[in-house]
């Protein structure tokens, strides 16, 4: 696949990729945009090469997930090393971007809050299946885990999500 074809494909998948990046960054919009740019750079620089073993979308989401994981690792190390002495990061920086929250509907906000309560793997597999319309097998490839493990996380995540959503609905009714 040459550069032009790759750019066309990336443009086609851009909206979905941004959605995935947002969820990989706990809905911090600026961080998601940076993440996406870094991932695109990896793809266009051929630091990450598509070998055709899966669909391009599955592969690209894997690149985005790995890039996000690397960014989070760097942030954690930086926080461990420097934040003890230099607390440059404003309080609440790890929370979701207020701008993006303000744009969300009530239902989406409830959903995001419920999904945020899941474990990382449950959150990822639930997002990939329900939001990105991937199969559990494809999600397992994006997450680089066995299908059986992905299925277990999916079932548990789905069950927990329903419980959380039901709990929030009850709270709303009471309120």
């Amino acid at each position, binding site marked *: 696949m040459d550069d032009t074809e790759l*750019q066309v494909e*990336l*443009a086609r998948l*851009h*909206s979905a990729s*941004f*959605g995935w990046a*947002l969820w990989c960054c706990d809905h911090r*919009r600026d961080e998601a*945009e940076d993440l996406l*740019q*870094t991932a*695109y*750079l990896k793809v*266009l*620089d051929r630091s990450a090469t598509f070998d055709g073993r899966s669909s391009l979308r599955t592969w690209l989401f894997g690149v985005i997930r790995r890039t996000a994981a690397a960014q989070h690792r760097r942030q954690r190390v930086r926080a461990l090393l420097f934040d003890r002495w230099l607390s440059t990061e404003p309080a609440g920086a790890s929370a979701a971007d207020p701008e*993006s929250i303000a*744009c*969300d*509907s009530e*239902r*989406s906000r409830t*959903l*995001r809050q419920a999904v945020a309560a899941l474990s990382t793997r449950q959150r990822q597999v639930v*997002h990939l*299946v*329900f*939001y990105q319309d991937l199969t559990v097998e494809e999600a397992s490839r994006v997450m680089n885990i066995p299908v059986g493990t992905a299925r277990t996380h999916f079932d548990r995540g*789905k069950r927990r*999500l*329903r419980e959380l*959503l039901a709990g929030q609905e009850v709270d709303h009714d009471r309120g």
Partner: protein
Amino acid sequence: MTGDDRDLYDAFAEARREDAEHAPPMSFPARRRPEHRRRSWSGALVVGTACAAALVVAAVWLRPALRPSDHGSTGLQEQAVVSITTWKPATDFLLDTPGRALLRGVPVIGESHGVARAPGHG
């Protein structure tokens, strides 16, 4: 996907629509390939310089030991040869058996080598 999950698919689809509405426009990042190349070149230069410096230090440090002696062999070689020729095993005395001199030299008639004669033979 099962029919029971329809509500979850709908909820996520709504979130997806909202995310898509606020997605930033597609823009490709400026390529960093030349910069990568420069960085790899500068990295290679640093590594090369460090290796060369290490070699120089090693050469200077080992030079006295490798310097040839007056006999044409190096000091280290000479030391090794001396130690091999003078070394004897701790059990060497066991080989020093009685009558060993007989085996080493040519016997002479009439000369006694200290071998005891049997009584009654002269």
